[in-house]
């Protein structure tokens, strides 16, 4: 009840933070997909690159988010760009790995059939491998998005805005309502993103029906 009252009083500010949060999540995941999907495709063509690339992405994944922000601040300064960069780094691994795994998981017999019909490598990728791997690739983007909603909350610690602003302010002044005012919308956003991807998957992904 107190939460409802809080949002009623601070609707303008709250909406602004939700907007900042969305921008962080959409831009970072979008950029990570734009880089990560082609990178995953390259890994299926250059097997030697796979251990270093996936290894490096995995190492970044293990760095705690606050520490990663700390590392990046000297480069990108305080605020938006550091947060975006960190979010991209976190989103890359699931996207690259799932793209690679999805394409590698396409039945070799189907791939050979495509080649046997005279497909070039680009045609094989566009007509066979990407459509058949779409479910796995999309699942990677989905995980990256949901994780990104969570990590973006920490962005408030370095002045990148977003719903974390309420969380950190609430922690500082020991106010449960303020913490929940940040945490609940963030959780709802993660659920909504997850649901959106479920819908997208049903629309986009071919499946034996």
């Amino acid at each position, binding site marked *: 009840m107190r939460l409802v009252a809080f949002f009623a009083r601070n609707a303008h500010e709250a909406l602004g933070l939700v907007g900042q949060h969305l921008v962080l999540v959409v831009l970072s995941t979008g950029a990570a997909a734009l880089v990560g999907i082609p990178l995953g495709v390259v890994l299926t063509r250059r097997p030697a690159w796979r251990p270093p690339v996936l290894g490096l992405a995995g190492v970044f994944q293990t760095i705690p988010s606050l520490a990663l922000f700390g590392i990046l601040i000297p480069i990108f300064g305080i605020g938006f760009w550091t947060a975006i960069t960190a979010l991209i780094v976190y989103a890359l691994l699931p996207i690259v790995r799932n793209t690679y795994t999805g394409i590698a998981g396409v039945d070799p017999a*189907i791939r*050979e*059939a495509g080649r*046997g*019909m*005279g497909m070039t490598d680009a045609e094989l990728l566009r007509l066979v491998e990407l459509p*058949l791997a779409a479910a796995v690739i999309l699942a990677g983007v989905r995980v990256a998005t949901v994780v990104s909603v969570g990590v973006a909350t920490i962005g408030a610690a370095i002045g990148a805005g977003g719903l974390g602003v309420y969380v950190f302010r609430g922690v500082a002044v020991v106010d449960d309502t303020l913490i929940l005012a940040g945490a609940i919308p963030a959780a709802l956003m993660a659920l909504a993103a997850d649901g959106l991807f479920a819908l997208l998957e049903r629309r986009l992904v*071919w499946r*034996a029906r």
Partner: protein
Amino acid sequence: MSAVLEVRGLGYTLPGRGTGEEGRVLPIVRDVSFTVGAGETLVLLGRSGSGKTTTLKLINRLLEPSVGEVLVAGQRTAALEPTSLRRRIGYVIQEVGLLPHFTVAENAGLVPRLERWPPERIAARVRELLALVGLDPEAFGGRYPHQLSGGQRQRVGVARALAADPPLLLLDEPFGALDPITRFELQQEFRALEGRLGKGMVFVTHDVREGLLLGTRIGLMHAGRLLFLGTPDEFRRNEHPEVRRFLEAA
């Protein structure tokens, strides 16, 4: 009769694995030569692992020959782009050859699409082909491969191989995974089709009865070599022990 396919001294070896084995090679196909003319069906008969399928893949360059040369319609395949070569060779594969996410019509029209035919021409060609292999284009065109029976899938596979009207067809155990009755029906229909199409065909099978029924000539492969090459009648009369073993198994 002009040769649609000429295979001369074809060989394929796999490099030995591991550093200790350098120089040692494992031959898969050795010194295979034959020609196939228009309207002719050469059946490559042999046990599993005898090099039949490998020979087919050396013809359409899914595998690169180690020695020897292949000529399709008089052109050396080594001098051609592999993709354009394969679009000029119909290829029928056992069981999983259809793209699961393509409809029957999309599968049958695949090579014309790769060749960038206009859509109306592809659609017309697909209707013609499906009718040719005994599938009603209206009823089947929009279905997916998993909605078809094994026999229907193989019909689509044959339609797809014929789509761009290639002079040469390679068939890799096309009826291998079918139940005996469907297999018999398709064999009979295929036999009728052979005469009408006038293509050169290489048909791989391990079934000697299928080979004798469909082949104008039989090539028996054993351990990567072509042991015997001749007409079905010559095959029946041949005294080679491997030939006798195959005939006894029939």
